[in-house]
């Protein structure tokens, strides 16, 4: 009789338990809460689709305006930041492959470290840099703009801090992937007369398509959840043009006064659905093209 082994359970078990406690149960409860009136302290009261109707169809409601303004601003952030967070790390990773580049490890560390710094500390530094009176932009470049209070400058400082903090993570993934591409391919292509641009598009890019899909999908999902950068850099201003959806959700659930957690949950579920659909589409389109 074959002896039954419990070893796999011990390997998978801790992860499963953590997944259940910190991911699955909160997610299911969050979805449930979106169908309720809930102030975090009372027993959630089931109201069906009422929150969703208000958010999606009641044009006179504050929550409708908050949701669509937040979603619009979040989409602006995603559409601009994701290409930057894919292309710039990729270019840096490719550039670091050049034979004449010295101190690759140091350069990599310098680019990666900003991602480890807390957004609050980073924002304080960048706000001082962009400070008209005290900062580099005002004193060295003679910029007379109050960056956080005027568009498009408010968005620009949000993108600057996002790219500064986000380039390193993807760059590491690309460098590791590029290192795995066989050198023989590059040598043969070079012998056949392929230039560096041709080698990049014909060898490097196809060889790292899966890391590219992964980073594209993950960066997009992370960008939809943007919160800290606009909160710290502009506080949603001017005129709430950088007020992203996560900021509204947090204000409703954990802001001033009695919590409106049911409505906040409904907004969060809708944001989750948008992320799910966009990620699935991205994955589908990119996998189909790579095949």
């Amino acid at each position, binding site marked *: 009789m074959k002896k039954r082994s*419990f*070893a796999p359970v*011990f390997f998978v078990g*801790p992860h499963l338990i953590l997944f259940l406690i910190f991911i699955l149960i909160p997610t299911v409860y969050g979805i449930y809460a979106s169908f309720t*009136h*809930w*102030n*975090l*302290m*009372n*027993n959630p*009261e089931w*109201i069906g689709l009422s929150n969703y109707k208000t958010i999606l169809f009641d044009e*006179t*409601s*504050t*929550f409708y305006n908050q949701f669509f303004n937040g979603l619009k601003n979040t989409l602006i952030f995603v559409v601009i930041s994701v290409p930057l967070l894919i292309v710039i790390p990729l270019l840096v990773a490719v550039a670091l492959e050049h034979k004449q580049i010295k101190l690759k490890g140091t350069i990599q560390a310098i680019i990666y470290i900003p991602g480890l710094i807390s957004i609050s500390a980073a924002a304080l530094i960048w*706000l001082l840099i962009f*400070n*008209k*009176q*005290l900062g580099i932009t005002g004193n060295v470049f003679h910029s007379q703009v*109050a*960056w*956080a*209070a*005027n568009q498009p400058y408010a968005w620009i400082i949000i993108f600057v801090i996002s790219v500064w903090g986000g380039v390193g993570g993807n760059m590491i993934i690309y460098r590791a992937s590029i290192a795995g591409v066989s050198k023989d391919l590059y040598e043969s292509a070079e012998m056949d007369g392929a230039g560096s641009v041709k080698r990049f598009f014909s060898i490097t890019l196809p060889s790292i398509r899966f890391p590219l899909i992964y980073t594209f999908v993950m960066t997009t999902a992370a960008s939809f959840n943007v919160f800290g950068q606009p909160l710290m850099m502009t506080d*949603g*201003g*001017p*005129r*709430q043009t950088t007020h992203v959806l996560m900021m509204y959700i947090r*204000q409703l659930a*954990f*802001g*001033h*006064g*009695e*919590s*409106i957690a*049911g*409505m906040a949950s409904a907004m969060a579920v809708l944001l989750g659905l948008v992320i799910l659909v966009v990620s699935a589409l991205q994955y589908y389109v990119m996998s189909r093209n790579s095949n």
Partner: protein
Amino acid sequence: MKKNWIVSLLTVFIVSIMLSACSNGEDKNTITFWTPLTGDDGAYMDQIVKSYNETNPEFKVKHVVTADMYTKISTVLNSGKGIPDLAIIHADRVPGYVKQGALEPIETAISGQPEIKEENYLPQAWSTGNIGGTQYTVPLDIHANTMYYNKDLLKKYSVESFLDDNVVTIDEMLSLQGKLDEGQYVVNDALLGWVILAQVQDLGGDIQENGKPAVDTPVMKQAFENVKKIADAGLMTPFGEDGYLMFQSGNVLFSTDGTWTSTAHAAVEGLNFGVTNIYSPTPDKFTNRASSHLFAMLGNEKRTNEKEAGIGAFLEYVRENSMEWAKAGQIVASKQVIENPEFQNYMQSFFTANQQEIDSLYIYTYEYYPYVAEAVDTYCADIVRGNVDLDETLKTMQKFVEDKIAESSKTTTN
């Protein structure tokens, strides 16, 4: 071998769970005390608690600085586990918490402490914790919006007379139009929402009428228009600039921030500053919008009567020994402390110097004040800078508050 390995893993797992369970254990002789006091404030409170524990009380106090405390309070009240014995909450939380049944009357804890009574505290700090005749809190302090002034700049522009009656009026500020050097301003926009709410009181208005929110009102409009005049005249620090830092760098005559920032200003070398009341549209009245840190007991069935008596003893100690808290720049609520000559060493003693100053410290107690304050904070900068239409935005703000109230009113309390 394999069996040993599995047993070892299992042992580690069980021990981990046991240890994590231990960390949640509640000592029956310890008062768990949550506060949202991060930074230096937390250190000053630590010192008060340490001094109290050195008196060897029957129930020692364990101070836990809890960032994001209000979120955690919701969580523990919901689960019924890990509820602190005592907490410090802000004044604007009291009406909502009482309505939701989250607070227990503090009367049981202070019944053995005859000196913990209204007469021994600043009146508005005490009364803000009284809902429907029941006392839910004991105050630690009042922290108010205040106006610092740069003595050197006042002298430079020969306007020290602005301070003669302790009320700097908007007209006085406007009289400086066109007289300042480039890069210098009369006032900054720090805590602008609080300033607007003070103007509402100065104009004889309120943020509620018969329990209904009153945001889109002639008084609120007037309050915004008055402050906007200063910005329109180019006398307010530019939009998006750090007016607080500009004051510290010596380029702004007045800074409308909080009593608690006096310590930060004092640390700036060469900044020669004093404190006065928030500017007013009229010389006849001035208001400094304020809040208060309050000791409160969250609903917790496990808290024994003996422990509640221990809490009372701690609150009495704080009443007698909270001079330490003045170091944080706060106006201590205990009269015993503020009547002590030592309190005069602190800048915020300006606000307890006479009855008129004490009366100027205004704490909003309207149940839905947090929503009104949120609406004012969200829109005030754009209104004052003329980025949005005032009438239209006031309507939006009114709707903002009404929608939130309507939504929160649908929830039923436990």
